[in-house]
């Protein structure tokens, strides 16, 4: 079978890490993939410019959910500036399965939402 439904993808899909909401979020964002209706929300707790805690929520396919779940694991303790600079390639590598062009948006929706949460926080910095 194709390599693209590996065990760990299903595991993240059925047992997403950091799923839910934060009691106190410093930054949050959500977006919809208009083509399929998938929705993801990221909430961040920030301390000293670093991600102290993170939750994501929403619904969607195994690829979007697993990608967001893995993403949430990989950013704890990271600097916001680094989160904002995270590359698509890094995320795709993390997901670790071949993603067809048609599913690219699924795999990257989490990253898009996470970055807008982080960017919103950075833009709001001065106050």
């Amino acid at each position: 079978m194709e390599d693209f439904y590996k065990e760990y993808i299903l595991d993240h899909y059925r047992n997403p890490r950091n799923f839910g909401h934060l009691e106190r979020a410093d930054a949050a964002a959500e977006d919809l993939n208009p083509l399929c209706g998938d929705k993801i929300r990221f909430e961040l707790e920030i301390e000293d410019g670093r991600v102290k805690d993170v939750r994501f929520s929403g619904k969607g396919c195994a690829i979007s959910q697993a990608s967001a779940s893995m993403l949430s694991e990989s950013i704890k303790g990271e600097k916001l500036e680094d989160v904002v600079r995270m590359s698509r390639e890094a995320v795709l590598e993390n997901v670790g399965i071949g993603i067809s062009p048609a599913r690219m948006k699924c795999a990257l929706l989490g990253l898009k939402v996470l970055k807008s949460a982080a960017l919103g926080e950075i833009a709001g910095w001065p106050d």
Partner: protein
Amino acid sequence: MIATLGSDARARALAKDFPILAQATSRGKRLAFLDSAASSQKPQAVIDSLVHYYTHDNANIHRGVYELAARATEHFEAARAKVAHFINAAEPAEIIWTRNVTEAINLVSYSWGLGNLKPGDAILTSQLEHHSNLVPWQLLAAKTGAELRFIEVDEHGIHQLDDLDERLRGVKLVALSHVSNTLGTIAPLETIIPKAHAAGAVVLIDGAQSAPHMKIDVRALDADFFGVSGHKMCGPTGIGFLYGKRALLEAMPPFLTGGDMIKRVQFTTTTFNEIPWKFEAGTSNIADAIALGAAVDYLEAVGMDWIHAHEQAMTAYALERMRELEPLGLTLYGPPNPADRSGIVSFNLGDAHPHDVASILDTEGVCIRAGHHCTMPLMEKMGWTATARASFYLYNVEEDVEQLIAALRKAAQIFKLG
């Protein structure tokens, strides 16, 4: 193996008219194209029509006196007559070319709607509608102050008509899809249209999912407007049409304006042309209109009644075979009685997301659609995130269903279902 036996041999022969169906996927799999509700494949005759037009007849129409222009004009207007005959319109002038059914609906919304609705009036549609037959009415309601009302559907997607008379009170426009693209429900138009007319409403039918699949008679239906997309009925992309009764069309102001739809232009005033040209501004999609004429020729040669019967048989067969997968978590949606639905089957497979199911099916050469099918409000009402959808057309054969079932088993296995 019951239902399809009768029509399968013919469908197998017809499939040969569609060159794309002979093409294997990049993984070397046979193509099982089960997404005709999104857009159908095209027979060689339609492709040939395009090639012939650009190789022998191409010229701008209506105003040219030379041979090419005369031929282009003749074929273009002949295609309009074919389409008029296809849906049994009273005359070709009642057919207005549009890009697709979405533009047809928008034309009515802008040209008829803005002039005929006011606060206190209502528009009645249903909970089943495609965004194209919903969003234009939301905006029209917002612009005119009219109220947007819905015919409710039950958990199978069947229209609830008990309180229809009440819901029709004050309604000036009823806008309904003939067949639901998500659940396949056939709307009970023979009940609704007479009541709508009795209540003083004008009726627009979104024929996107009916005209390709069953014989349409707009006069027997007594529809006031009827919109169709050519790309779903073996025609090319970029062409569709709006049927409208002459008296209504004549009373409506133009929508798009510019070349070809005028009678006389002066610097500050303009007299508009007669129907249908009043509504066709700028250079038409000449080649694709002619090719849609070729599609109509093809469909009529196959026979709309045969197409409908074949799809009913295919659907009954598919539903039967898919029920075998219920132990693996397969859930079927839509009207339980195959006679109440057309060749569209929405389903879900356990907790596997339809996108993932579709991706796995793709690796097996099976093309289905997954998502909200441009009916988000219906999905929300039903409480579904998304569904997978297989849809049938004249070229689908038993083997497509076999391939679907086998691929679904594979998906269930990957998702460890059952």
